[in-house]
């Protein structure tokens, strides 16, 4: 399942997409500690799979929380994406 967390407002679209099918086979869950803002958590979804999700309390502030990892120049691979070994995480901005 592709789970899109985030929002769209007057300034743009700010969605983090997690391909949860890749989470189920991931033994590391590197995203949990890989994000400096700790925006990810492990949940049991509606189909009883143990998957990563963006915490509910931060879903509407992603633009600001992720800003530190997204400098306007010289941006490398985002820490959360680097920590996610199955490549399940993508950002829309």
């Amino acid at each position, binding site marked *: *399942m*592709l*789970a*899109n967390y985030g*929002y*769209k*407002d*007057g300034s743009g*679209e700010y*969605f983090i997409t997690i391909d949860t099918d890749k989470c189920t086979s991931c033994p590391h869950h590197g995203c949990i500690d890989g994000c400096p803002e700790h925006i990810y958590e492990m949940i049991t979804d*509606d*189909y009883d799979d143990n998957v990563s999700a963006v915490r509910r309390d931060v879903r*509407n502030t992603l633009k600001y929380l992720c800003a530190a990892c997204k400098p306007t120049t010289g941006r490398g691979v985002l820490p959360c994406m680097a920590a996610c070994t199955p490549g399940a995480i993508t950002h829309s901005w």
Partner: protein
Amino acid sequence: MAEFWRWKEYNWKDPDKDWKSAKLITSGIDVGSVSSQAVIVADGELYAYASMRTGSNSPDSARNALEWALRDTGMKQENIQYVVGTGYGRVNVPFANKAITEIACHARGANFMAGNSVRTILDMGGQDCKAIHCDEKGKVTNFLMNDKCAAGTGRGMEVIADLLGVPVEQVGELSFNVPEEPEPVSSTCVVFAKSEAMGLLKDGWTKSKVLAAYCLAMAKRVSELLERIGVEKEFFITGGIAKNAGVVKRLEQVIGVSAIQSKYDSQLAGALGAALFGQALLQKEKAAGKVA
């Protein structure tokens, strides 16, 4: 003072079905931010439901909705073998056996209401909007939700209906009384849309023209959500706004896809999906010998 935003609450039961002969009786309670629905399913068929406004107390809203659905059926709450709570207040349904997100429940409900060919679902709820993709079993494969602002939601429509003094159920029909489609009003904020609508009225726009502009703005707003996950031809709309033809027709024009029509009430999708989840979970528990 008239409350133009206040929609009519209702309940229903199947007069031809005798629930006493049913082997599996489950209920889904959808406590949304604006409305609450209770649905009772007997042996996989819709038996009774109620839809009412959510109050300030989610447990009370859940109880009231279920009590109203049970009214005149002869059924009591203890006759219901499994209850699933869903929606914004799903964890506050005190008598629920399990809570399941409204995303999964709407997909399951849409699969029942519009058939297993449905692949794209738009839930236009009271205070948020969700775009969902599902498979032939109604299992979610992709979803996106926007609950950051009220633009494109039922509450936004209620605000405009109240401003214009038009009963919210008549908004869609009235919005077609225009010689040509106006430009949409602000689509990014209900507060700005409201002040813009007031300005347009002062400029001499008719109520119908303002409503047409607002319905179009709402359609464009939600179409952006849909476009992010893609729209397939087997498209179905759930939630209260699905009853507003002014938004639905304009949305169909914007995305170029017609929504599937169903004999079921679009507002029941979440609760119905929850009741169907309940049925599957109950069968699983029976098979495992956990319940008689």
